[in-house]
């Protein structure tokens, strides 16, 4: 379908152009209205995406040469896996602008510049079909996120922002090496073309490890998760929302887009390890969340657990599991995004994120507590909410794979209910600490909390449209995966090959 204009390019470029317009504005209030209008226009620009055909092809494709001599292309397109992420990113932007309306009190221009810049970069990540283009957007998003934490963050922002930057950059350096290796071995940077190729197992082994490190840090999976709570707690409200709703999805999206199609044999080989780490993330994240006294930290650790469900679903390699992973990605974006916005609301009133300072709000802030309760229920997967759809799919996938994996996930779900109830009960009915004089939600807060609430019910009660969008792509992904995972495995023993590789390199060095 042709719209007469490059839909995705405009979608990616518009926030950037709008961001440059900020330099000509002065008054903070004008900056806010301007960004709000820009983000709404961005939503309008996403309307042509409803013409997405329900099949597994890449659509809205744009392709021109970038550096012809080196095989670089400006190559964009979306399929069922990425379109939901694109829509999520676009939808989160106006909510972020609204939730920082009064929260951000200094350097407003730069703040909104960062928001818009970041949206561009993240959209680019989800649309890019050229490996180098993907990497460009992947790294470009680091700088605005760093600034969001380092400038507008809490007291410990310097530590948190540095940790975030160093961790993620260190992870992605090897991704670049893997990209180059794909180019030299496969002869192209184009992802759809590389998906058709079969690489030797030895190559897949290393490529998978290099890519998985980058993505696992971004997700974050269990041993690499330590940057996340620090970053979340220190980041301003909008920063946390973007971080949780969109940035973490880039990691799991990377697994789906690169690891499974490009290195199927290695994915199969490493699946037990990835499943084990995922379960560890679920249990560990949940257990640590149970012990937090800081609401934001609690939600941050709950993210580790939720993202564990996503990676678990991906590495089950069955239809339900991957569908569940995609749903969980979307749900986590909606629900955790909303939770962080609400923490922002309550922080603006109490100037504290401690549970003990924000107790007994049920009486004074009933509307707030309604939304909080809803999101908390959705967060641990109460039936009728969107969280249930995602989690049940992952569970079905897990039990299909093996009863043991399924049994190990059950405590994770219980933990999620436990920590969410603990914090919600205290916030609703605890002994009121200081909430007496606070105003309940104002119109702006109503608006930005209603939007995610609608999605909670929509996905929870009528998920069919979403299934229709993702199913063809998931089916194709798994089909290709099943066809190619065995074909590529060589008779050799992988660990020995790997050890021999390392030894050869060391020997070659001397």
């Amino acid at each position, binding site marked *: 379908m042709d719209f007469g204009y490059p839909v995705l390019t405009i979608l990616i470029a518009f926030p950037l152009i709008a961001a440059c317009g900020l330099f000509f504005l002065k008054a903070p209030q004008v900056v806010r209205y301007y960004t709000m209008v820009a983000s709404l226009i961005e939503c309008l620009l996403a309307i042509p995406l409803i013409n997405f055909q329900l099949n597994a092809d890449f659509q809205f494709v744009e392709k021109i040469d970038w550096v012809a001599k*080196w095989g670089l292309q400006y190559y964009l397109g979306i399929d069922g896996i990425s379109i939901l992420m694109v829509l999520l990113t676009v939808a989160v932007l106006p909510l972020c602008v609204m939730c920082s309306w009064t929260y951000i009190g200094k350097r407003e221009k730069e703040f909104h510049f960062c928001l818009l810049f970041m949206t561009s970069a993240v959209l680019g990540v989800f649309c890019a079909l050229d490996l180098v283009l993907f990497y460009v957007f992947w790294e470009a998003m680091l700088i605005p996120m760093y600034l969001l934490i380092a*400038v507008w963050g809490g007291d410990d922002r310097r530590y948190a*922002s540095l940790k975030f930057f160093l961790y993620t950059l260190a992870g992605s*350096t*090897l991704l670049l090496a893997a990209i180059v*290796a794909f180019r030299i071995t496969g002869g192209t940077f184009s992802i759809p073309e590389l998906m058709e190729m079969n690489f030797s197992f030895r190559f897949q082994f290393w490529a998978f490890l290099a890519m998985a490190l980058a993505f696992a840090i971004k997700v974050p999976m269990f041993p690499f998760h330590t940057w996340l709570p620090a970053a979340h707690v220190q980041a301003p409200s909008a920063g946390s929302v973007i971080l949780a709703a969109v940035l973490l999805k880039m990691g799991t999206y990377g697994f789906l887009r690169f690891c499974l199609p490009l290195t199927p044999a290695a994915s199969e080989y490493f699946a037990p390890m990835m499943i084990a780490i995922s379960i560890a993330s679920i249990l560990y994240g949940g257990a640590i969340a149970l012990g937090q006294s800081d609401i934001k930290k609690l939600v941050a650790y709950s993210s580790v657990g939720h993202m564990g469900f996503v990676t678990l679903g991906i590495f089950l390699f069955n239809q339900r599991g991957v569908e569940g992973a995609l749903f969980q990605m979307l749900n986590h974006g909606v629900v955790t995004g909303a939770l962080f916005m609400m923490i922002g609301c309550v922080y603006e009133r109490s100037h504290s994120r401690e549970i003990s300072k924000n107790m007994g709000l049920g009486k004074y802030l009933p509307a707030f507590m309604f939304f909080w309760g809803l999101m908390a229920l959705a967060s641990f997967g109460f039936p009728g909410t969107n969280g249930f759809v995602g989690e049940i799919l992952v569970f079905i996938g897990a039990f299909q794979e093996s009863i043991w994996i399924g049994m190990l996930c059950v405590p994770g779900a219980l933990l999620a209910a436990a920590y969410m109830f603990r914090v919600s009960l205290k916030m609703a009915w605890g002994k009121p600490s200081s909430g007496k004089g606070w105003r309940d939600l104002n119109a702006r807060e109503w608006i930005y909390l209603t939007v995610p609430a609608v999605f909670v019910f929509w996905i929870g009660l009528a998920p069919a449209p979403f299934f229709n969008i993702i199913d063809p792509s998931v089916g194709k992904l798994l089909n290709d995966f099943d066809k190619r995972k065995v074909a590529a495995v060589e008779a050799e023993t992988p660990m020995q090959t790997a050890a021999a590789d390392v030894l050869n*390199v060391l020997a070659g060095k001397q």
Partner: protein
Amino acid sequence: MNFHLTALVPELFFLALVLVLMIQSLGDRNWQPPVEKWLPFGAGLAFFVAITGFGLHSTMFWGVYKVDMMSQFFKIVLAFGFYVTVLNASRQSTLEDGKRADYYMLLGFSTLGLMMLSSAVELITIYLALELASYSMYAVIPLRAKEKGAAEAGVKYIMFGAVATALALYGLSYIMATQHTTHIAELMNKSWVFAENPMAVVGLSLFLAGMFFKLALFPFHFWCPDVYQGASNETAAYVATMPKMGAIVVLCRLAVLLKPGLEITTILAVLGACSMTFGNLSALAQTDLKRLLGFSSVAHAGYIMVGLVSGTPEGIGAAAFYGLAYLLMNLLVFWIVSRVASDGRNLKLTDLNGLYKKAPVLAFSLAAGAFALVGLPPTMGFMGKFFLITSAWDHGYNWLVITLVLNSAIAIYYYLSLFRHAFTEEKAPTGVAAPDNGWFASAGAGMLAAAVLLVGIVPAPLFDFAIRAGESLYGIVHAVGGAGH
């Protein structure tokens, strides 16, 4: 003697420029117009003359002087670098009035030497051109008023330079004795295996050591941070960029000898790996901005080796392109250093605090420069690094490529602290000169930053030129006047 006047137009124009400077330096200091008033226009014109000469090719002086794609690429780069350094130095506050014309004359002679170096294809010619470029540097470095450190830096540079030169000459004699020629084109067909020709390989290693000194490659880098620190900011901008271009072009020309797998190639690769790791680790601990940039250039010298050891035209093209990227990024950062230190003092990292408020354009440009040096997209530094590693992958030095990408992760910390101090730290130092926030400072920084970003987003035209330059060294000839510009 075959001699084509037209093929030498860029050099001749530069020679004329330097001669005018020489006459002015002989004259009275009250001569009008003062050198800063006219020289930027002359240097800008020289840049355009160099661009018009991009398609020239010719061989002269019995085959020792060759005008080809590679030489023209570097002549354009050098002319551009000279133009920017002249503009940068025109506001230098630590230069005595009476020495201004001399200062520019010496810079000009040095650049002329580097231009000739980029065309030299014979070892003795290379040596002579290199000396022309170096002698002027020895005199320029101590030119910093009321600063004892500058004299120390000058002495250090001369001592190290003399030793390196002596080594190179000594190596040259070995090469001549065993291979019986000094023309690179003929040396290309000789054997450089240590078992067959040990003396020649030792000779080449020593000769290369002379180049490594210029490039500040580990372990010939010891002068680098000290000289940057001692010399004035503007001089450091020159020393950090231009002589390195000379070293890179010679290494690019000599790289045709370095087939992957040879002992000498492996030495180069190992030195490159050591250089980047050592440079980056040392830079982590620096608080003086120029020392930090000094160690950063040690690391960058290591990166360039990645392209050179690949032994392909693409690798050499990528190294040349990275040379250009290095020049642009460093000129950008030094431009900001020179403008922030409007009284010519040495900057600490904390001097950058709150720069975003005092001089937003400088701060933004510094961000572009710092992230380009790390190699973050969408800057020229990323493209340069990306081309380097793509050209080197699967040519036997994959471990070097991995070392390079891992080094980016180390390097981010100290480049990020440039950015961090400029954007997130509020506590500005008191009692020091304020940064120059005039139109001149902003326009220069803004344009250099725009160039770094623009070439990062659309690298194809310049990169094609660099690749053709690389191919020309291997005798792959294209029709002139193609996609270069």
